[in-house]
């Protein structure tokens, strides 16, 4: 199983982390929610997999392209 790094598509703040390492996620399952542009923007799993690592904490300011989490392909 190869790891996929999930990067932020937008600059903002980590508001809520919804999934924990070990969680099985379907494609487009919510990993965390960012606050950006006055909106709550979800970070979604790019494909089915198991969340292996969360690389940020709630309240962190993040930049576009910053790695947020790692997902092991295939669940």
């Amino acid at each position, binding site marked *: 199983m190869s790891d996929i790094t999930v990067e932020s598509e*937008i600059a903002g703040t980590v508001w809520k982390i919804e999934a924990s390492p070990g969680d099985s996620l379907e494609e487009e399952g919510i990993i965390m929610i960012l606050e*950006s*542009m*006055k*909106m*709550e*923007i979800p970070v979604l799993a790019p494909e089915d997999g198991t969340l292996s690592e969360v690389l940020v904490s709630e309240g962190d300011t993040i930049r576009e392209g910053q790695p947020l989490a790692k997902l092991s392909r295939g669940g």
Partner: protein
Amino acid sequence: MSYEEQLEELARREAQAKAMGGEEKLARRTEQGLLNARSRLDALLDRDSFREVGLLAQSAIRADRDTTPADGKVSGFGRVEGRDIAVVSNDLTVKGASSSATNAKKIAYIKTTATRSGMPVVFLGESSGARIPDTMGAESMSQGGADPQQYCRRRETPWASAVLGPCFGSSTWYSCLSDFLVMRKGATLAVSSARVTSLAIGETVDPEELGGWRLHSEVTGLADAVADSDEEALELVRRFLSYLPSHAGEAPPVQSAGEWRAPNGDDILALVPPERTRVYDIRKIIRAVADEGSVFPLKERFGKAVVTALARMEGQSVGFVATNPMIRGGAMDPDACRKASDFLVMCDSFNIPVILLVDTPGFLVGVSGERKAAPAHIMNMMHALQLVSVPKVSVILRKSYGQAFLNMGGGRNSDEIAAWTSAEVSFMDPGVGASVVHGLKRDEDPEAFDAAADALRKDTSAYDMASVFGVQSVIDPRDTRDFLVAALATHRRRLSNGIGRREMANWPTYF
């Protein structure tokens, strides 16, 4: 020679041509779960509808004649759902379906006939590129360039392409020129093969990295759809064609009553949170307003802040362009603009009315977008929208801000606009405006910030827009489908029988 002997000779030659690259190669493909050039035609076309031209074509090199059945490219005409199409199916078992002088003539013949007779062209791609050594040298190179219109696209008829194996050379070029490109997982689309590329640049290149489905569905946006098998890819080609007219001189086919069903009545109010900070998936709204099962998304994994999808409203083909708040709040980046431009050009070129669903905080700003020439892509999209001459109708669901308001059909950039009761329109989000105009930050002075934001929120509602005729109606969200059906009927181009001006017909097939 007697007629009997002549007919035996014809039968022998036909059987030899239909045997393609031989039993062994064909058996190997079957073991791998792959169809071959002829069984792909069986899967694509209506039963027994294929009429081949060029079956007995062979390499122009005399020594290769016996080893080049159909010269590696099976070509002809057939029907999809009873409608005529032209087709080229590459046969990788014959010299890698490489391009040669003879099969170039076959492709040219198919394209010319389809254009003259008003038929879509389908390319089933799997080819290794130019045939070497045939194409080496000046004489061959000058022959190869004999047709100065070979790669011109004027969208007289739709072109669809399925990338079903290694695609280099002609299969790649015609795929890139097509209006629809579906890629089978495991296939490759690139200029040259991984082997040739590795030799040229002196490092090992992985075929998937060089031109796999992930690259083209997520990074380049060349692939409109991805399939797990040959059969699925060919079914997607059939489905794509079902939305398109056979040629640009007619309106798309319309399903008769009984062939389409209204959507299943999802509660649209439950799909869109009234809170302006909460996001939702616009694809659910498209499915809730379009005919049941009719939504056919294109480039789903690319430029995802905007959704582009063919669909039907009461049996009539339409193209949805919808910002998706689920992705970056619906803020379009350069890739989203490229995707929207591409789709608008196709819809307008083939007389497919456009529906815009709008919920966007504006364009995504930032250094990475500017490095990708965001302003130019925003203007390409705007230019395309303004040249769209088929009906264009828009609905503002919640936010529509700034230049994105215009790019998504605001002002006179739609024939008609309806606003949901939750719509708000302005140059920028009032909260952002409070910071930009007054230099306020909420965490430093919440009272002053909220007062300034409230002041900027005035005159932004659906009713404010309606009062200045900036939208033509304010609607109950649950009436969205009814509004769209009625507005499309009102704005139908009766004078030209549904045909647009097609001013973008020769715009590029990739942005």
